[in-house]
């Protein structure tokens, strides 16, 4: 695999607000990349800088080794699916899709041929004579997709393309996009604030916060080995428990007197331990904890069941801990009653934080 897009030291300010803070990122041919983060984290600014709608203050963006930072959008070998689709209202579906090849100098009949081909890929060939105005959100979405792939760009940018669709259609489109991407072999950069969506479709997720990249990795890396407190909290649910490490290597958690057994080296003296709710066991009053399982005692504050699983919220020395158990809640879990919880220290992920 070779590097397709190379982003180097890109910064962007809006007044005193730092939208992009020294971004470095390499993307390979045919990769499905998701830029994930809360609103205002800089993901859309980064996408617009790649597309050319915005000039970074400093740094370079190169596609296939060629620096495109100073090129206008129409000279960049990439296409964009816009958040609100931006379909031309005065053109039919076919005209919309054929617009790209036409502007690239392809003649009329061949442009139409290419447009029909692209429409067929998204399953819309029957609607080519309609105007976008009268189409559903899902159909407009497909037209926007067909219009963006018709020129066969090296790189396709998608700016929260599914955010306007309802949940069911959204889930279906996620899988369709993934299949389409695999079929075309084009690298996709997909912006979203929805971590579930990101984990569903991405080869690699780029988690952004406050203009910086917090972590790059595949979904399991990001979930099981978050690089920062922000990533741990943003991706899925997490119990964040403060820890302290002594010079002798003993690690103590805020919720337990005894040290835990870990083998980390060069760990910062303070930080947080990430414990996912599914790794917290709710122990039965009669059964003892199994070997290797650390036991903690607390008070139940809430029991929330969604049918397939139950979340048990409890407090341990003032620290909230959430446990996730399969199925419906046990009868003895009642708010205000005490509870025995257990966890295996292997499941802890420690993130050192500089003081």
């Amino acid at each position: 695999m070779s590097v397709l897009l190379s982003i180097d030291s890109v910064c962007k300010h809006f007044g005193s607000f730092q939208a992009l803070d020294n971004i470095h990122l390499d993307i390979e041919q045919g990769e499905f990349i998701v830029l994930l983060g809360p609103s205002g984290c800089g993901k859309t600014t980064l996408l617009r800088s790649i597309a050319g709608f915005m000039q970074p203050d400093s740094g370079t963006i190169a596609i296939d080794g060629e620096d495109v930072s100073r090129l206008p959008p129409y000279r960049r070998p990439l296409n964009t699916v816009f958040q609100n689709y931006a379909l031309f209202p005065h053109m039919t579906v076919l005209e919309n899709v054929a617009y790209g090849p036409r502007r690239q100098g392809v003649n009329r009949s061949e442009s139409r041929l290419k447009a029909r081909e692209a429409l067929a890929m998204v399953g819309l060939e029957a609607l080519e004579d309609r105007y976008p105005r009268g189409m559903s959100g899902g159909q407009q979405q497909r037209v926007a997709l067909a219009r963006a792939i018709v020129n066969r760009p090296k790189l396709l940018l998608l700016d929260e393309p599914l955010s306007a669709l309802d949940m069911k259609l959204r889930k279906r489109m996620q899988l369709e996009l993934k299949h389409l991407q695999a079929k075309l072999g084009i690298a996709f950069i997909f912006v979203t604030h929805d971590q579930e969506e990101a984990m569903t479709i991405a080869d690699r997720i780029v988690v952004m916060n406050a203009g910086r990249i917090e972590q790059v990795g595949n979904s399991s890396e990001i979930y099981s080995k978050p690089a920062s407190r922000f990533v741990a909290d943003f991706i899925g649910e997490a119990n964040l428990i403060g820890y302290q490490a002594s010079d002798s290597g003993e690690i103590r958690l805020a919720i337990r007197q005894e040290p835990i057994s870990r083998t980390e080296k060069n760990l910062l003296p303070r930080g947080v331990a990430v414990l996912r709710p599914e790794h917290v066991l709710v122990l039965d009053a009669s059964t003892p904890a199994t070997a290797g399982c650390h036991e903690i005692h607390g008070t139940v504050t809430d029991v929330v069941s969604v049918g397939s699983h139950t979340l048990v919220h409890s407090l341990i020395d003032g620290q909230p801990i959430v446990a996730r158990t399969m199925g419906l809640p046990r009868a003895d879990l009642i708010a205000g009653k005490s509870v025995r919880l257990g966890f295996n220290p292997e499941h802890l992920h420690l993130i050192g934080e500089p003081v």
Partner: protein
Amino acid sequence: MKRTALAPWLMLFAALAFFTAFFLAPFAVVIVASLTQGADQTFTLDHYIRVLGDQYHWDVILVTFRIAALTTLISLLLGYPLAWYLVRVVKWRAWRRACVILLVVPMFTSNIVRSFGWMVLLGRKGLVNQSLLETGLIDTPIRFLGTELGILIGMVYILLPFIVLAAGNALAQVDPAFEQASGDLGASPRATFFHVVLPLTMPGIISGSIMVFTLAASAYVTPALLSGGRISVLSMLIFQQYSSVFDFNYGGALSVVLLIFTLVMVGLAGRVGNIRGNNP
């Protein structure tokens, strides 16, 4: 309940009564006058035959609509870029507001005053000729008054704001995302303008043009003052018939001819506007 149900009808009636009394009735009077003759009001087409059978009238009709068409065209060519500047280029709100005020405030002044102003400026020893002479661009003063050029300058000046406001309004409503999408698909700014922005602002351009064209075709004050009596447009002939000759029948026929010609032109413009920019 009953009052509220009645209120819309009352309001509608008021509007209809006003429209009938001050528009339909006078219009009917004009039409009837144009089709009748003498105190006993016998039906005749003589006035129309007199209007359309005379080459002089055809010349005046031609001049009238040539001036109206050129006024519309020049206003568009000047007004669209100005609207673009105000909507797309100006970033500073206060300056944009100041520009719009500068554009609109002259409309509060009487056409007569403004046309007299142009008579002073465009005269043989007026500011325009003086400046041109002093900068050495011309050797002898240009004759503006009494020429179509002079009338055009005055008309464009008076009617330009209509185009700027209509086109500016249309431009402001074009979502910048369309232009970005066009650029993203490989269209140069020039291609984006002709394939996306221009078609999307066409309704505004057409409505502004129709306004300017109809106002220019029916304008009286500006052509009357700037023509110096050398050029006649239809409205001046109509005015003569009503105010000096007192031939309301013949004047009525002229009015109806002006109206019909204007409607035909506007209809043609609307037809052109309906043709969509389908180029793939």
